[in-house]
């Protein structure tokens, strides 16, 4: 039963991914993107990583997609259908994407890693408490640095997109 | 006595001259040159008492490269040539002020430092470092102080630099290969490394390319004439008298003993190339109008002669080659300096505009004529002893090689005397031609004395070089 759910969810993810990529209108692709992120969150849930799925939804779908849609609206790109690349480059794109798929899967199959049995840890390692504990103990320094990173990104974004007030 | 001191003297000299003002630059440089000469003579005395000495300190640990120098008969003689010629080279333009002299003299001293390094080093990589280092100063000397139009001068200097540099890259490849194969770059390890035949052929060719460009040997000589012509007098003398000798010395020291089988195998090819060079230089000189370019081709012919001596792989060939290296070093100084003397007075380098100098400058005529006699190897000159021995060395290889080589005797006489006639003889020219000043006479007298003394009594030189040449011959014929 679980595998069926997994396959459905995987199908949704891939379909929405493809649709985001192939749709003509950027807004459509944004919406498919949101669907895709929800499916990924679903995957997290299935893996019992609730904290992750929630964070995923908040950060990706909540923040990034909204920002994307906002920029789309700002640059009112929604109505005109964007010009399509030359056929040759589109074919080249698909060919190279497929080539990459084949390569990655081939590499994985050829590498044939040994997969041992799953050891079930007694405590629930994915619970929020444990993750919070790990973040604030082992990874305190990177945690602080992410805050610095975010501040820098904010300032950068503001500065870059500020309209120079020509004299 | 530590050999490295001479390197220190020259390096220190180069730095000090750089920082001394333009007025004193030439005097300071001359002081250091004479100090270096004195030291090398003390090395000579020490060599005679104790024989070959060497000096080595650890330089790089990972690829174990030791900064090792060695003074045996051959390198001592080359060192003497270098350090005795340096003061004379400086003497040629000490009275002739140029712009920013201190840089020029410091470059000259630096060049001499690099060349002394080449002659002394007995570790392949150290040798290669000094080999490349010597290229840099001569490039700047030619570009900054050369004559002729700036763009052309830069172009020929650049051709020379890249041409020589490209050649020596092949040598670097060979050195690296040898390090990989032999495990150490010390001279005696490389000599005793028994490389396979094919390896030897490839290494021989790699070395040959680098040295053929430097000497220069026939197909690789295109850079030579224009650089000799465009360089200032000190640059031409450094190039002609010393730098070509670096190539020849390296053939004897680094190429033949390391790859004896290949040397014997490719002997006919290399001999033919050098002999073509001899005849080519002699014949093309007939049609040169620029005097310095004329002497450049004459030097090409003589240097080809030495190369033929070296590549004959006989003991006489080698001994003759080393003698002729020394003789040509002093002889070519006289020739190029005469061109400079004429250029300073008549302000034109073209033979067609010269003539009748003999009647207005007797002292210069005697000096110039003696230098011509030395260059066409009249007996009782040092050049003759060299050429005589080389011809016998080449004769032992095959008579067929001796005849074209011997042809350079009368071809040399042909183009030299023809030039002498157009430059010096004929009726009096209208322009004034003041005779030699003291400095100029001193240059001629010094080189003439050396050429005559060793022309008559060349035994001391032969005694110094014969032990190390015997040893090299044992390697070459193994």
């Amino acid at each position: 039963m679980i595998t069926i759910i997994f396959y459905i969810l995987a199908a949704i993810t891939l379909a929405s991914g493809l649709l985001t990529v192939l749709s003509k209108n950027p807004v459509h692709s944004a919406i498919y993107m949101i669907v895709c992120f929800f499916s990924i969150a679903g995957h997290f849930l299935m893996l019992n990583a609730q904290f992750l799925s929630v964070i995923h939804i908040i950060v990706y779908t909540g923040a990034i997609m909204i920002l994307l849609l906002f920029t789309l609206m700002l640059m009112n790109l929604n109505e005109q259908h964007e010009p399509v690349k030359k056929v040759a480059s589109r074919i080249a794109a698909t060919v190279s994407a497929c080539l990459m798929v084949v390569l990655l899967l081939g590499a994985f199959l050829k590498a044939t890693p040994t997969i041992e049995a799953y050891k079930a840890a007694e405590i629930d390692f994915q619970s929020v408490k444990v993750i919070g504990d790990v973040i604030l103990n082992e990874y305190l320094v990177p945690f602080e640095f992410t805050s610095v990173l975010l501040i820098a990104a904010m300032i950068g974004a503001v500065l870059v997109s500020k309209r120079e007030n020509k004299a | 006595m530590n050999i490295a001191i001479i390197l220190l003297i020259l390096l220190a000299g180069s730095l000090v001259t750089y920082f001394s003002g333009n007025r004193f630059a030439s005097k300071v440089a001359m002081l250091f040159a004479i100090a270096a000469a004195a030291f090398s003579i003390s090395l000579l005395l020490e060599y005679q008492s104790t024989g070959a000495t060497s000096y080595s300190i650890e330089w790089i640990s990972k690829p174990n490269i030791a900064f090792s120098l060695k003074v045996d008969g051959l390198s001592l003689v080359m060192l003497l040539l270098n350090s005795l010629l340096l003061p004379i080279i400086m003497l040629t333009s000490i009275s002739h002020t140029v712009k920013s002299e201190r840089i020029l003299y410091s470059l000259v001293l630096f060049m001499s430092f690099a060349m002394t390094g080449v002659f002394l080093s007995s570790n392949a990589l150290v040798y290669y470092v000094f080999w490349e280092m010597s290229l840099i100063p001569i490039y700047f000397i030619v570009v900054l102080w050369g004559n002729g139009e700036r763009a052309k001068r830069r172009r020929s200097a650049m051709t020379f630099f890249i041409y020589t540099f490209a050649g020596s890259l092949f040598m670097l490849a060979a050195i690296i290969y040898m390090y990989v194969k032999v495990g150490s770059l010390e001279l005696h390890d490389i000599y005793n490394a028994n490389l396979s035949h094919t390896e030897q052929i490839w290494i021989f060719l790699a070395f040959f390319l680098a040295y053929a460009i430097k000497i220069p040997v026939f197909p690789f000589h295109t850079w030579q004439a224009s650089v000799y012509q465009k360089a200032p007098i000190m640059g031409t003398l450094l190039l002609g008298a010393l730098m070509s000798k670096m190539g020849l010395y390296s053939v004897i020291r680094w190429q033949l003993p390391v790859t004896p089988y290949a040397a014997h195998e490719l002997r006919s090819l290399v001999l033919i190339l050098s002999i073509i060079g001899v005849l080519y230089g002699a014949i093309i000189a007939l049609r040169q109008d620029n005097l310095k370019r004329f002497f450049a081709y004459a030097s090409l012919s003589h240097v080809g002669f030495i190369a033929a001596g070296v590549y004959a792989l006989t003991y006489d060939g080698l001994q003759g080659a080393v003698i002729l290296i020394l003789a040509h070093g002093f002889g070519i100084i006289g020739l190029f300096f005469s061109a400079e003397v004429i250029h300073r007075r008549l302000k034109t380098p073209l033979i067609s505009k010269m003539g009748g100098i003999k009647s207005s400058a007797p002292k210069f005529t005697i000096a110039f004529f003696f230098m011509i006699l030395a260059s066409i190897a009249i007996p009782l000159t040092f050049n003759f002893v060299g050429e005589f021995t080389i011809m016998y060395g080449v004769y032992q290889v095959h008579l067929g090689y001796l005849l074209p080589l011997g042809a350079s005797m009368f071809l040399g006489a042909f183009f030299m005397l023809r030039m002498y006639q157009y430059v010096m003889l004929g009726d009096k020219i209208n322009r004034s031609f003041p005779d030699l000043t003291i400095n100029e006479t001193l240059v001629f007298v010094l080189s003439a004395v050396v050429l005559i003394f060793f022309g008559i009594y060349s035994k001391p030189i032969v005694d110094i070089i014969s032990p190390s040449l015997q040893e090299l011959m044992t390697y070459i014929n193994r």
Partner: protein
Amino acid sequence: METGLILLLLIFPLAGFLINLFVGKKLGKTLPGLIATAAVTGSFVITLIYFIKIVSTGQAIHVHLFEWVSFSDFKANFELVLDQLSLIWLMFVTGIGALIHLYSIGYMKGDENIDRFFSYLNLFIFFMIILVTANNLAIMFIGWEGVGLCSYLLIGFWYKNHKFNDAAKKAFIMNRIGDLGFLTGVFTLGYIFKTIDFDSLKLAVTTTSNLEVSGLLGLGTLCLFIGAMGKSAQIPLYTWLPDAMAGPTPVSALIHAATMVTAGIFMITRLNFIFNLTPDVQLFIAIIGAVTALFAASIGIFQTDIKKVLAYSTVSQLGLMFLAIGLGAYHVAVFHVITHAFFKACLFLGSGSVIHAMGGEQDMRKMGGLRKVLPITFATFFISTLSISGIPPFAGFFSKDEIMVVAFENNIGLWVLAALASLMTAFYMFRALFLTFNKGFRGTEEQKHHLHESPFVMTLPLIILAVLATIGGLISLPFGYSWLNEYLSPILVAGVPAEHGATSHQFMLIGISVLIALIGLAIAYYQYIVKSVVPEEDDKITGFAKVAYNKYYIDEIYDTLFVKPFYVLANFFKNIVENIMNAIVFGFGYLIAALSIPLRAIQNGSIGLYLFFFVIGFCSIVAYLFFV
């Protein structure tokens, strides 16, 4: 004491050279001449001392100075030897040298760089002494090239005229071609016998006798003969001698008549024990000698310049000497060298004093009737002409007759050539005599009253030489009374054939050679005295005379065959080969530049393309890592 005196022999001329060269200008006009003559006379006195000593003791003297050049196989030490051969040569080199120095004091009086002239003359004597007294081939080579150098300096003495410079350059280059042959010969001998000293060579020759050696030995002797050809102006390499007349006359007398040109004969006589081993090379020498004698004589007949006539006669007489050497009669050749030195020097000096009197005019068509004005010159010239034509009892008759006898006994064909040559010699010598001294004066008025007999300092050498030319024959009379033969016997390994009594055919031969000389005289007398013919001007000569007058155009042939190709080749090298080489070298530069253009197109700024390459790159890395 021994070495000191012999060294002095060398030092005198060297000192004379150095003094005159460096200090000459300050010594005024006459002092250089005196110093030079004193130096050479000094050497002559020393030679005389040793000559007398060796005649009595017959004991050669060796002097070892120091080691000069050392090879792997042998050493060349700076050694001198005074034995019979070198002393006889020294006698007439320094003797005639001194006379000529004395003569040139008068002849060169007006010249402004007279000091340089005497310094070169002394340098020449110095090198000639080294050549003659050398104990091995390397030292002989020093003298060999040294005299070539001095002949260059002296021929081109009046350097203002480019024709003289060309003549000097030509002489030097042709000599050096010969020297190349000489060197190859020296190397071959050194290579075979592992030594180049004469006495050890003589020893080695007797010991090594395997066949292989003779093949190489033949080559060695042939090359040595090429060297002799260059120096003594034989057939292929003789054209420099007539042009060498551009030098002052004393130079022609000393170098191109008496001393330098005999160097070739000296060398072959010195190495007679080697040349005897290669009979075919000897035959070759004889043939070359005879042909040169005839060829040069035929040109001499038509020349109008008095010095050119004497130059060709020298080439012809040298041919006769080489004929004698080729037939193995070294002592006859040496005898002819001595007598030739006497009368040829006298002839040259005589023509010198004629030219001196005529104010530099050398063309015989402009002379005539000088008999009364220059009596001493005429007398000495007349004696020498008699001597050279072979009229008894003069010296020339005895030496030429010996050659005729040797030629007759060995090779009739060559004897015929020699006879013809001596007939022509008699004819053109008397022609020269009559044209210059008899009949009316054909010169310009201004020359006429300028005519005067040469000063005593010039006529004294003439007289001495004329006397020597007459009594010279005594040193080697036919029919066994030859002092010279047994004097030279220790030198010649084959020894001198015992002089048999007066055989019948010898009388007949003497008769024939005298007859030839008289016929020559008669034809000349008839032509130039009875019919008083005067050779036409240059442009009107026709037919064979024109060809012979222009030296069979040999010079022009040499020029186009040998000299022009070098210039053509030089042009070819300069314009074509150099450009090709440059093109190749700079070609690499342009090649790289050309290659870079397509590469530049790839970076055209389209980000899509970069991304595409990015993905392709990633894929290839993964592929390589996992699948290769």
